[in-house]
């Protein structure tokens, strides 16, 4: 582990560089969406404040804790494979997938409740943003889980090693991006008013 000290701060981005182009692109898209939300709100402050009260913030909190933890599990998976422990890596990824599935379940339950309450894309501008942002993010969680599932399978099959685990880092980077986006989204849409 002391090898780490000698390569501090000079490494390339973890995983395949192509995924990072994709990550930067996705971050840009979400960034634009966040900016649009914030500026749209500035013209309709009362509407946004009022409509925001219709959200169930506990669901949001639960989802944040779930996603952050699953991201932690993925980080642990990466550490495992760096130490050559590919089965452990598989287990950590499986755990992350489980938590990801919980995230999706919570989000679906929340959507169900939202629709019952009359929240819809056409209800008002806040609801439009809330549903668009969280649905768009939901789809990215699904995609991230597909990627992690593929990586987990390969990890269990022993296809990665301490010397060669680019796939793990690639998939992990994407998942962390999904987590990062949610952290901002949660604060912006659920909390800040």
């Amino acid at each position, binding site marked *: 582990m*002391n090898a780490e000290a000698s390569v501090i701060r000079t490494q390339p981005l*973890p995983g395949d560089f192509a995924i990072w182009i994709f990550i930067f692109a996705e971050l840009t898209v979400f960034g634009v969406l966040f900016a649009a939300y914030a500026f749209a709100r*500035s013209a309709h402050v009362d509407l946004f404040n009022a409509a925001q009260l219709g959200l169930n913030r506990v669901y949001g909190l639960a989802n944040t804790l779930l996603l952050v933890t699953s991201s932690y599990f993925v980080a642990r998976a990466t*550490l495992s494979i760096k130490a050559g422990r590919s089965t452990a890596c598989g287990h950590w990824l499986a755990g992350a997938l489980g938590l990801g599935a919980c995230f999706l379940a919570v989000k679906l339950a929340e959507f169900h409740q939202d629709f019952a309450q009359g929240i819809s894309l056409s209800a008002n501008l806040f609801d439009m943003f809330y549903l668009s942002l969280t649905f768009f993010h939901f789809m990215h969680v699904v995609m991230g889980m597909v990627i992690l599932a593929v990586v987990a399978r390969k990890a269990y099959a022993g296809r990665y090693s301490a010397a060669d685990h680019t796939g793990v880092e690639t998939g992990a980077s994407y998942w962390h991006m999904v987590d990062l986006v949610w*952290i901002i989204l949660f604060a912006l849409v659920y909390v800040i*008013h």
Partner: protein
Amino acid sequence: MKSPAALPFKPCTVSWAALLVLTTISFELGSDASGRMLMAAVLALTLIKGQLVVSHFMGLHRVRLEWRIAMAAYLAAVGGVIALAYSIS
């Protein structure tokens, strides 16, 4: 940056704990009545959380300077735009 062997916990574990704590704090701060300072604090905490994910989950603390700057710039830009939009509301 101490090597992991020197700490009782891995850096990513410490970050995770910090994220859980900061999330709960943000949630609590946001639960009560509003106030510019409180909301600014929530935003700041959010950016710190983001930076933790970038540095210790994505592992960018080990990576070349230009990428760390890029990600930090992203967080600053998003935070800045949000702060700007809220300040003119």
